[in-house]
């Protein structure tokens, strides 16, 4: 093979050699295939700013070539050849002979030919490297976008923040090249809890000053590190606030120790801060979704409980109106919510009808519990054969003892003795019931405290004449305090006017007239309170 061909063939090894060993490979080839036995090779560094010493042999050469090679190398080279691509100088080759000065034109021509070939190889290799890096960067940006897209999909498909937190943290670490990261969530009290972390993180070191600065700035910020910081011994770290609905500050994402390709760690770049901010937005959405999901589940559970309580209460209330010879009974019960605080009951003992209407304080579940207790005690006391005054007294003692301090109920009980043609009643703090007899309307007003207020309260029954044709109307305040859209209440005068208009009407007629009148009065206004109405008439 021709010596030049062998020379060029050796140089071609450049294509398969690592960049770090290229300098010595080139210089060795020149010293092996030419008569030059000393020299130095400078190659432009990756940033393109300096000519850096890549290899030297039998000479003194500075690390950076700053000036003409002839002036700075010792001994001075016999020939200096620029390694030139079409765009720029990629290097400088300086060669010399230690013995004699027999450099001829052939030597120089061979060096120039081989140098041109090396220039082409180096240029091609650099272009290839740039293309590969460009391709890598392009794919890397695509990876970033895909990751954000995937996180969005994950958020849409899962409502469990525990599952999402790992994925968010792992992707954040991957895309920012961080070595450490942390996700803090804000507690109700205002502090922060370390929710997820990777690498060494100080769980108790999200300083108030730092969090306040993040809240104020509302964007990703870079902080100085050190021994005593969120990420111990880091140089710098970044943190970004997680902002929920209405800009509420709900957490912090932080990362430290961004890796560099050279093997060390450095500061995070602007695009990485933007990426962190995007991740923080995703986390905010995930947290918000998870919170709403938790609330929806809690609401569902509450609704199920209320539905169950409503079923229980429906079972407590009379399923049918009892049939008593000589007496018409009609009733209406309309709870304002699923579970109400109104209660009514009927008892028949020895031909005597007793009707009861009660209204416990409060609404929903607490009221329903008190209604249940009241129902159980009243049933037991009636079964024991007690009279209504005793029942009220015992009921009061029981409710006071076993119920919460602020729990009480108003109640009215009436007993109708057809033989004696009398009506007995006990009104414990309840609305005045109406007694319509002989064309006159009389009130059965309260004569005692509501049930459950004071333990020693003793109730006494009052007696009224109740001849045939008489009517008793018991109701809860949901009837007389029903409001129209303007907030005006139905009130007792309207009820009394209705009773006057329907003297002698049947119990069911009176009930329907009152119910219709209340409905017409209220109109589109929502029902605010339970409504109970019991009408009892002797025929």
């Amino acid at each position, binding site marked *: 093979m021709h010596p030049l061909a062998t020379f060029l063939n050796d140089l071609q090894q450049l294509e*398969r050699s690592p960049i770090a060993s290229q300098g010595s490979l080139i210089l060795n080839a020149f010293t092996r295939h030419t008569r030059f036995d000393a020299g130095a090779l400078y190659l432009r560094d990756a940033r393109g700013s300096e000519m850096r010493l890549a290899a030297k042999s039998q000479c003194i050469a500075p690390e950076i070539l700053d000036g003409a090679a002839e002036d700075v190398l010792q001994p001075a080279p016999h020939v200096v050849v620029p390694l030139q691509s079409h765009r720029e100088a990629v290097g400088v080759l300086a060669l010399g002979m230690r013995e004699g000065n027999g450099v001829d034109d052939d030597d120089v021509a061979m060096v120039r030919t081989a140098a041109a070939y090396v220039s082409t190889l180096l240029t091609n290799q650099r272009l290839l490297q740039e293309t590969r890096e460009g*391709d*890598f960067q392009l*794919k*890397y940006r*695509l*990876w970033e976008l*895909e990751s954000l897209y*995937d996180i969005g999909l994950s958020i849409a498909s899962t409502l469990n923040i525990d599952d999402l937190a*790992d*994925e968010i943290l*792992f*992707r954040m*670490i*991957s*895309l920012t*090249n*961080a*070595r*450490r990261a942390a996700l803090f969530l804000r507690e109700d009290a205002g502090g922060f809890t370390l929710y997820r972390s*990777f*690498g060494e993180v100080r769980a108790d070191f999200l300083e108030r000053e730092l969090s306040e600065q993040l809240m104020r700035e509302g964007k990703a910020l870079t902080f100085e590190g050190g021994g005593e910081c969120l990420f111990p011994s880091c140089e710098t770290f970044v943190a970004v606030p997680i902002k929920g609905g209405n800009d509420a500050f709900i957490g912090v994402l932080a990362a430290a120790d961004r*890796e*560099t*390709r050279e*093997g060390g760690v450095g500061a995070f770049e602007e695009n990485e801060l933007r990426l962190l901010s995007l991740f923080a937005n995703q986390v905010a959405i995930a947290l918000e979704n998870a919170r709403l999901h938790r609330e929806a589940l809690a609401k569902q559970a509450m609704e199920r409980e209320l539905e169950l309580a409503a079923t229980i209460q429906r079972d407590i209330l009379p399923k049918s109106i009892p049939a008593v010879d000589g007496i018409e009974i009609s009733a209406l019960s309309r709870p304002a919510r699923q579970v109400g605080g109104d209660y009514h009951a009927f008892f028949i003992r020895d031909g005597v009808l007793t009707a009861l209407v009660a209204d416990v304080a409060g609404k929903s579940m607490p009221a329903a519990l008190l209604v249940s207790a009241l129902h159980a005690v009243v049933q037991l006391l009636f079964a024991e054969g007690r009279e209504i005054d005793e029942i009220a007294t015992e009921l009061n003692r029981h409710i006071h003892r076993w119920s919460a301090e602020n729990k009480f109920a108003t109640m009215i009980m009436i007993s109708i003795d057809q033989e004696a043609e009398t009506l007995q009643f006990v009104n414990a703090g309840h609305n005045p019931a109406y007694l319509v007899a002989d064309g006159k309307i009389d009130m059965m007003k309260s004569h005692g405290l509501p049930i459950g207020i004071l333990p020693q309260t003793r109730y006494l029954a009052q007696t009224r004449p109740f001849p045939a044709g008489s009517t008793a109307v018991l109701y809860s305040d949901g009837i007389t305090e029903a409001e129209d859209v303007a907030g005006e209440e139905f009130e007792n005068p309207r009820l009394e006017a209705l009773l006057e208009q329907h003297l002698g009407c049947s119990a069911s007629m009176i009930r329907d007239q009152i119910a219709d009148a209340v409905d017409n009065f209220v109109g589109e206004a929502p029902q605010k309170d339970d409504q109970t109405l019991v009408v009892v008439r002797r025929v």
Partner: protein
Amino acid sequence: MTEELRVSVDRRDAGAIMYTKGYINNVGGEEIANRAYELMDGGVRTLLLNLRETKIVNSIGISILIEIIEKMIEKGGRIAFCCLTPVIHKTFQIMGLANYATIFTDEDAAVKELAI
């Protein structure tokens, strides 16, 4: 969670399986590269990387894995991956590793296909 990558190797007659545990970053990638080059120098031409216990890989780790793949291809060998998390699988596809290295779902399928 483990931050430092740990590598173990199952050397077989017809190749080797390398198991990684932890973060494939600069440090972790170099550890894999060193072990892979040792195996290549020892004549291994079929290398399976089982990443079952690796959940995170960053761009520097990926570039090192690409270098390892290129080195193996230069030597006429073959590199494959198995047991990747869905996130890492997608990352390898986007970053082009899947063009030069086969990705298997599980180790048994990989061992059978690679005959190691």
